[in-house]
């Protein structure tokens, strides 16, 4: 009844599901995995502090995607970071400008910023004008962001989410404006630009750890824990497989071919 050639995959899937369910169960009892230090997220506080010292605004954008694509997890990660940024700008009394590229993201982003100000205990400091919806079109949005960076003379530029062709444009504009830049995306093709232009970088999967790292969200922590277990399995399989390969024992390869 089982399809041969796919049994190993089924086994892996079952293991991942069981581990995930177990970790979720533990998380509901308050036992969550600890998460490592991530410089990109830590840099945000320093970057916002700098804006306060200079008396210039902090710019934020959650990228080009909305919620209706395969890239929506990146937008959500970006908005999670926005909540953190809003909390910090509220606490440090820095000015925040956040620009979104999709009309559907605007109400969610507004709510996110309001939430951040509330968490920082300064709900009265929130203004709707902190959020700007520029355009759904790629370059109209990017052009708008660049305009803001130059006109407002931003001190800090934080970009986390999905970025496409405009990534380099935005990073260059931030650099020219003299801003300290924190940038992150899971779009592989664009990360290189962020690494070479921005001061701090969140690479690939790192952005998805936002909720777990910044807000200690138990469900997301459990998810990260499960992912790490799967990575340990992959690492163990590769290490064992290489040793067996050198010894000329093909048992693991055959097992994975099942």
């Amino acid at each position, binding site marked *: 009844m089982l399809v041969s050639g*796919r049994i*190993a*995959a089924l086994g*892996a*899937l079952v293991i*991942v599901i069981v581990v995930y369910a177990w970790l979720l169960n533990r998380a509901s009892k308050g036992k969550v*995995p*600890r*998460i*490592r*230090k991530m410089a990109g997220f830590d840099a945000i506080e320093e970057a916002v502090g700098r804006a306060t010292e200079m008396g210039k605004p902090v710019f934020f954008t959650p990228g080009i995607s909305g919620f209706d694509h395969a890239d929506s997890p990146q937008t959500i990660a970006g908005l999670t970071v926005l909540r953190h940024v809003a909390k910090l700008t509220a606490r440090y009394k820095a000015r925040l400008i956040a620009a979104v590229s999709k009309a559907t993201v605007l109400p969610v982003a507004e709510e996110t910023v309001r939430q951040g100000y509330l968490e920082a205990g300064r709900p009265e400091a929130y203004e709707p004008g902190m959020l700007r919806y520029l355009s759904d*079109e790629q*370059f*109209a949005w990017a*052009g708008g962001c660049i305009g803001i960076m130059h006109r407002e003379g931003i001190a800090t530029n934080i970009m986390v989410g999905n970025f496409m062709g405009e990534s380099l444009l935005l990073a260059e504009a931030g650099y020219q404006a003299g801003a300290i830049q924190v940038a992150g995306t899971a779009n*592989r*093709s664009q*990360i*290189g*630009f962020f*690494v*070479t232009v921005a001061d701090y970088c969140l*690479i*690939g*999967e*790192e952005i998805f*750890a936002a909720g*777990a790292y910044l807000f200690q969200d138990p469900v997301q922590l459990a998810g*990260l*824990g499960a*992912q*790490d277990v*799967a*990575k340990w399995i*992959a*690492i163990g*399989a*590769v*290490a064992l*497989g*290489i040793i*067996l*390969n*050198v010894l000329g024992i*093909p048992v*693991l*390869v055959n097992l*994975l*071919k099942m």
Partner: protein
Amino acid sequence: MDFALLGSFVAVVLTLLIYSFLYKENRFYRFAEYSFIGVASGYWLMVAINNLQSVAWGPIIKGNYLYVIPLILGVALFARLSKGYSWLARWPVAVVVGTGTALALRGFVDAMFIGQIRATIAAPMNFDNLLIAVITVCSLFFFMFTVEHKGPIGIVAKIGRYGLMVYFGVLFGNHVMTRMALLTSRFIEIQKFLLKVLGLA
């Protein structure tokens, strides 16, 4: 009237209008931008309707009445336009998301998890393949989140990070190639048009 030549003329004019953006953001640029979005959305609409004729209407005519169900579900998508029935629109989305997620998931486990591990360990063990295995493991360590990057794991993760930098460097180099090729191909279009107008082609 030579419609092919007129077509090339329109194409070249739009090309130049868009390039005017390099000098300064302006009205002509936006005009060109909206022109292409206008034609594109007309095209998307037509292509979707054609697709429906092929994948839904065809089978129903042939007597496969089961296909009426997705047709009704599809129409339910437009319930979003009404306040009272917008909940109906969740159903088609649920089916699409459920199927799509599961299809990707099963493929991810088989082809990209098991498949890539198998390829790493089944390769003949020479220096290059051993190095591939080592860097693969190191980069996996870099993406570990519940292990502190300290001590030996810190070193391993650092190697992984440098490995990823090589990957992004290669991407960077190829990115330049693509950008320049796309740009050059526009220039060649303009040249073709000019040659045609001058009667040289």
